[in-house]
Every structure is written in C-alpha cells, then in structure tokens.
C-alpha cells in the first residue's frame, strides 16, 4: 500500500507534497495548519474553530467571501477544526488551480487587513448557532462533552470541546484573532498537498510562486500535557430530551500511532464494529438489552480514548447494561480473540485503506491522508507502515492491549430521559458540561 508523492520544503518552511493522479481533470488542494483546540487554554476555548470560520470571510487582496470565486469555478471546498489540527481544502477543475492557490496563499499571508469587527461578530453568532444545532439541540448531543470533561484533568487540552463554551466564544475579541493568526497561521506551521491531475514540476512551481514569498512565522512549540490518568472510576448522569437511556464508557488509551493503537482499533472492531461484532451479537441479538452498541479507539496526537456506547432497550436499566458490557470486556482481557475474528477485522482494515484511495480530495481523501502522515509522523509515505501495523497484530497482542488499557479506571456516563434518573447509573453524580 502506498500513495506515491514528492515532498519539498520551501525556504520559508512550508512543506509541499505533490501526488499525481490523472483519473479525472481535477486537483485537490489540501492545507493543514498544525493548530487546533489543544492549543487553547481554559477560559478561552472554541477559538481555533471560530478562527477557521474567519478564514472564509476574505483576505487583503480579495476582501469578499471566499466561496464565491471558487464555487463558480466548479470547486467544492470546506475546512474543519479538531483538537489537533485545522484543515482547509478545495477540489477544483485543473484549470482553476491557480485561483485556489492564489486565494489560499492570500489568506495565509494577508488575512488580517481584511478582518473587521462586523465579520467577527457575524461569525461568532454563526458559531453559536452551529453549537446549538450540532450539540445542544441534538439528542445525546452533549454527552461527548461531558465524557471529555470527566476523563481529562481540568487543564488538559482534550478536556474542552473544539466547538468551545458559549461564554468563551462570546468573550473572544478581535485582538485574540490577530494574536492567534500571527502565532499559528504561517508557512512554518503548515503543510500543503496538491494531488490529482497535475504535473509534479508544475505543481512545485506554483507552490513556490504563490507561497514562496510569505514570511515564515515564529516557531510553534509542541503542546505539552501530562499523561492523563483517572484515580478511580467516575460515574455520571446527564438528563436529556431522549427516548432511551444511553451508556458511554471511556478509558484512556494510546495516542495515534503509539504502541497498542492499532491493536485496540482492531479490538474495537471485534467487539463493537457492525452486526458481526461480539457485543452486538450478545447485547442486541441474543439478550436484547441494547438497541445498538459501538466501540471505537479514538486516537489523537497527545493521547487516545477507547469508548463504548450502548443504547438501552426499553425497560433495561443502565446498571444492567453496564454489567453485561463488563462481562464482554472481561472476556477480551482474559482470552485471545479467535483467529477468524482477527482475520476479519484485518481484512476490514485493509479494505478501509483501499476504499480511501478512491478520492484525491476532501476529508480523508488521498491529499488529506498525505497531510495527516506528514504532520503527525513527518513522513507523508507512512500509509504503508500505518496499514502494516494492522497486519502485524496478533490475537495475543490484542488481549495484552485489552488487559493493559481496559482494566484501568474509566468514566461511565448515563444519559437518561428528563426526570428518569432511576433507570440511569446508580450512584452517579450529575455531569458537568461547560
């Protein structure tokens, strides 16, 4: 498995990675800034994401919306912010590549002169509405925020949500925007991929032409955070406008690409990936205690989280559901998974890698993968090793990973319908949600 590429670093520190794929007359532009909500601090959350919105509102030499010239050129485009990074992408017809690079480089080098209080106020309102739509007004929408608050220490950068707290978002100022831009939005903290119907030499020429004269910017020291630990199990409850109670179980787990990361990813698939998974078979099909159950190894740059989510069947208490899940988990700690289970999950992993090769752009397309490997591993060609990790996993190693990580203290959160705390977890405290 490989995605052929060439990487060069411009004199200002910008990494440029080129991948040719002439299947369709389109080119993907994918730009990562190595900054996310983990670079924020308590009391000032939500800023990296709010800033991402401002990147679409015009820059010094194009002080109009960013979407208009690109959409009429036939582009699709978007951006996203996570705890670890912020990415921006356009997929354009090959003939519109200059346009996309002109615009991307203008907002990397010359955003601030175009930034006004009015734009800022407008996008702050938009973000508050994004939060209402995707979290506050969505069933179980606040659960993930409550789990993170409980799992991490109050000052740990993964303890607050990328969307931020409403109070912090409202308190953000234009001065903050300027300081943030100067600290993080420059070539030294960015990585650019051009993938698709383009000649490699021409791609590097274009990158040099549009980005080569931008100032490098200051060094961005890596975010430091102590290895998170829980002193003991935490049991929480959250009331929400929902029909059925739902249980969230979360453990600390290895960071992205660290030892045991791939093993826990495979284990998550064996116990909670689809209808063939152990816990689906046990809880949904046989015992009918749950209506759905999933498991995921959610690994990020600083550390990971292994999470299980199960929705109770009507009349089933979360205590009973938690007990059934614990029995299933104990089995994975005490016995290896079967050879058939392991092979199946390995094939699923391989297939997932292959299916992701179908698109050059967008979220998780080839250009986004090259950037992820470059930013997190310093090696755009890491895809082969990434997949090889799954091939090397053994049933013994899955068991060891389960025993090592899933016997430690964890957070259990029960979400219950308003007023129905009796069917929630017993001895649970009210969850705190910022």
């Amino acid at each position, binding site marked *: 498995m490989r995605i052929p590429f060439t990487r060069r670093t411009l004199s200002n520190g910008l990494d440029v990675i080129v991948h040719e794929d002439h299947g369709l007359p389109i080119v993907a532009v994918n730009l990562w800034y190595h900054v996310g909500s983990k670079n924020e601090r308590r009391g000032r959350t939500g800023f990296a994401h709010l800033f991402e919105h401002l990147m679409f509102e015009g820059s010094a030499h194009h002080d109009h*919306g960013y*979407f208009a010239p690109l959409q009429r050129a036939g582009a699709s485009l978007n951006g996203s912010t996570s705890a670890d990074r912020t990415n921006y992408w356009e997929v354009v017809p090959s*003939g519109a590549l200059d346009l996309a690079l*002109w615009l991307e480089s203008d907002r990397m080098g010359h955003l601030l002169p175009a930034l006004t209080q009015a734009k800022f106020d407008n996008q702050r309102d938009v973000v508050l*509405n994004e939060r209402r739509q995707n979290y506050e007004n969505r069933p179980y929408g606040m659960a993930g925020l409550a789990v993170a608050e409980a799992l991490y220490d109050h000052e740990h950068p993964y303890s607050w949500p990328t969307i931020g707290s409403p109070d912090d978002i409202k308190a953000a100022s234009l001065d903050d925007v300027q300081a943030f831009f100067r600290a993080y939005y420059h070539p030294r903290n960015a990585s650019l991929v051009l993938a698709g119907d383009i000649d490699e030499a021409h791609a590097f020429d274009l990158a040099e032409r549009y980005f080569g004269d931008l100032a490098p910017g200051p060094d961005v020291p890596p975010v430091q955070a102590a290895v998170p630990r829980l002193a003991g199990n935490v049991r929480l409850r959250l009331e929400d*406008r929902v*029909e059925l109670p739902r249980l969230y179980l979360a453990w600390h787990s290895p960071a992205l690409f660290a030892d045991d990361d791939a093993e826990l990813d495979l284990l998550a698939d064996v116990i909670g990936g689809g209808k063939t998974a152990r816990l689906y078979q046990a809880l949904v099909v046989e015992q009918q205690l749950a209506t759905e159950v999933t498991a995921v190894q959610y690994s990020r740059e600083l550390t990971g989280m292994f999470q299980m989510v199960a929705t109770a069947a009507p009349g089933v208490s979360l205590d009973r559901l938690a007990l059934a899940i614990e029995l299933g988990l104990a089995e994975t700690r005490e016995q290896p998974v079967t050879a058939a289970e392991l092979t199946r999950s390995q*094939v699923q992993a391989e297939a997932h890698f292959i299916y992701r*090769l*179908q698109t050059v752009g967008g979220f998780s397309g080839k250009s986004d993968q090259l950037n992820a490997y470059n930013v997190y591993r310093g090696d755009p060609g890491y895809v082969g090793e990434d997949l090889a990790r799954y091939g090397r996993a053994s049933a013994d190693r899955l068991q060891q990973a389960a025993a090592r990580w899933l016997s430690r203290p964890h957070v259990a959160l029960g979400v219950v319908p308003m007023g129905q705390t009796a069917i929630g977890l017993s001895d649970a405290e009210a969850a705190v949600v910022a």
Partner: protein
Amino acid sequence: MTVDRRSLPVPEPPPGIQFPAVTRSQLQPGLRLWTVERRDLPLVCLLWLWHAGTSADQADTPGLAALTADLLDEGTSALSMSALHDALAGIGGQLDTDIGHDATVLTVLALSRHRERAVELLVDMAERPRLAPSDVARVKGLRLNRLRQLRHSAGALADLLFMRRLYGEHPYGRPGIGTEASLTRFTVEQVQAFHARLVATPATVIIVGDISHDEAEALVRRHLSTPERTPHPSPPVATSPTGSRLLFVPREGAAQSELRVGRVAVPRHSPAYHAMVVTNMLLGGAFVSRINMKLREEKGVTYGARSSFQFLEQAGPFSVQASIQSETTAESLRDVLVELDALADVRPVTADELDSARDGLTRGYARGFETAEQVARAAAQLALFDLPDDTFDRFSDRVSSVTSADVTEVARTWLRSADMQAVVVGEPSASLTGLGGVGLGVPEHRLADDVLKG
C-alpha cells in the same frame, strides 16, 4: 516570479466529461445488468436497485417496505444473520440499505479478490433473505425504538411533518419508517408477502469496478432464482391538500427552531429540470446562494440554510431547510419568503448570479464521478428514471443554455410565497413570537404523535 495580487486568476474552462461507458445485458425479463469496468483499484461496488420504494406501501401499512428492506441483511436461506455478517466482513464488505419513495437499493462495496463471494451474498440478500420470525420480531422492535427516538430529533420530526403537510395521504406524505401502530401490527407473513412482491419487481443490478462485464454476468446469473417480474403501479399524481399553511410543533427548551418551507413541485421528467437545478443553485443550493447569504452571512442566525428540489417519479418537494436561532424564527421565515418572491420580480437573477450558478454546476460536474459508488449511484439514476444514456454527457450543455428568463419563469411558477407551506419545530415561547404575522396564517399546533403514532 511574484504574484499579481491585484486581480484573481481567471480559470480555464474544464474539458467536458464523458460518463464512463456502461455495458448492458438483459438477464431476465425485468432484470438488467449494467456494468462499468474500472481497473484502477482492487475493489468492486455492487448495487441492486428495485424499482419500488416506500410508495409501494399501502395506506394502512406504512413502514412495511422499509421494514422488509431492513431485514434483507438479517440472514439468508444459506446463512444465519451472524454468518452473513461474518462473510460480509471477511470480504471487506461495506453494506448499505437505502429506501426512498421510488426505489429500494442494496449496495455492497468489496475487495475485488472476493468478487465471487460478494455477488453471491448480494443476490442471496436480495432474493433469498431468511425473514425468520425471531429476526422479524427483533428488527421490528429495533425499528419501533428508532421511531420513538425520532420524537426527540427536531430535524427528523420537521421533515416528517413537512412531507405529511405537503402530500397528505399521497404515498410521498407517509412516514417511510411507518407508525407505532403499523409497526406494532406487522406480522411475519406480511413481511414475507411483501418480499415476495418485491422480488417480482423489475430490478437493475449495477456493478462498477475491477471486474469484466462477462464475469459479472456469469456470477450474477449463477445465483438468480426469481423467474418473472412485473412493475408496481406508479404512485398517483401528487397535489397538496388544503388546510393550514403553517404548522408549529412545540419542543420545550429547544436550543433552536427547525424550519421547513416549501411546496409540491415537479417530477424528474419535468422539461424544466435543468432550469430548476440552476434556479436552486443560486437560490439555496450552495454556500453563496441568496438564502444562505441572507440568514448566515448577513444575519448570523443559522449555521447554514439551504434549499432543494427533490426530483422523484411523481412531483417531488421543493424545500428550504434551516436550524434557526429561536428568537429570530418569525423574522427568518419572513426573510425566506421575501427571497422567494424577490426572485420572481423585484430582484430577478443577475447576469453574474446566472453565470456563477451555471458555471458552478458544469465546471464542478466531474467531481461527482470519482468513486465506484458515485458512478454506480449515478447509473442507478439513469435506470430508475429511465433516462437517456447520454443524460450526464449532455448535462453541461443543457445547464449552460438556461437563461435568466427561464429562471424567472421557474420562480414565478414554482416559488411564490403565496404557494408555500411551512413547519416549525421549536421552543414554544421564543419561536412562536410573531409567527402568525409572516403571511402564512395562524400557526396550527401539531405534535410528534400526529405523524408517528398512526
């Protein structure tokens, strides 16, 4: 060489695109096989399309088609549910079951080295699902729970009530998921009878990827069993029933209002199809469209607002959709209505808007055919609506020939505020304020149970 930042680079127009060649076979009366061979990656996408969807439900059995579709992967005559999913996982399979008003679709993405097994599993699920009593009971229960959960999903509730308001008793107005009453009632025999009718419905099998047409045909034929297929009757022509034009569903403590505005519009075969696609693009189909620019970029009252024409066998809906800050609900609804009327007269489409909409559609068209699944689903549109083979190849020319007069005509005929109906799901005090004054009459209250209970 430095960059001239005084003006934006002018893009070169992209080359026209050619939809990949589709090889076609008639396997049986009423059963076609269409393939597109692509050898770039070791994968195959298999799609089984039945020309019948939730519209095939009867008035007193809403949800039967969707329940049956949901049971296709709960085991086959050869494999138990768990064995079937073991087998699917073992070939790298990603399975999707989709049901719409006019179609039921099974899709399997698989590694091409397992293509024989993939075809076998697909045909088995389509033609010989197990439909065992215990599985039917379990899946019925799961779907009932899902239905009850919809009560708390403001967006899903708004969609269901909107379609009910627009279409009334017409099949497009029924909740595809069914009602509590209907789901509770269904028997194994009903499911089996519905499936027997479904397998006797015309179907198209579409296979895209690392496989030749001849191999695909041989593999599909090896597993086919159903002899004869006859079409379901088409759904009747759709019109809106009379009644209140503004429905309000209270949701205590809701953080926003879910807003739907729209009407019954046109079928896929409408001669105005391309004019409507262009009109929607500039009105609400893209980020830069009028409605989003108004509500998001000017007023900041939503994360995003969009509009769409849904093209179906019979007249599908036009709708505007947004989640709106509660206290601006009435103002935002009025803004939407003003934008709709403005396009018909006071602010007709500008030359720049028209160019932008047409170019955005035509120049970005190639992106829609990148993955095997995108190609398979595009081919499924041709199959479902019986569209000419060159539909995608001619799309750009047809869009480019849409004029501003055509857009104005669409706006005058289809987008008058006087013809709109609306649904709001929101916090009763904040969202209701002023709602009666927007021009759609007095809001009439509805409850989730009005559409979910049955």
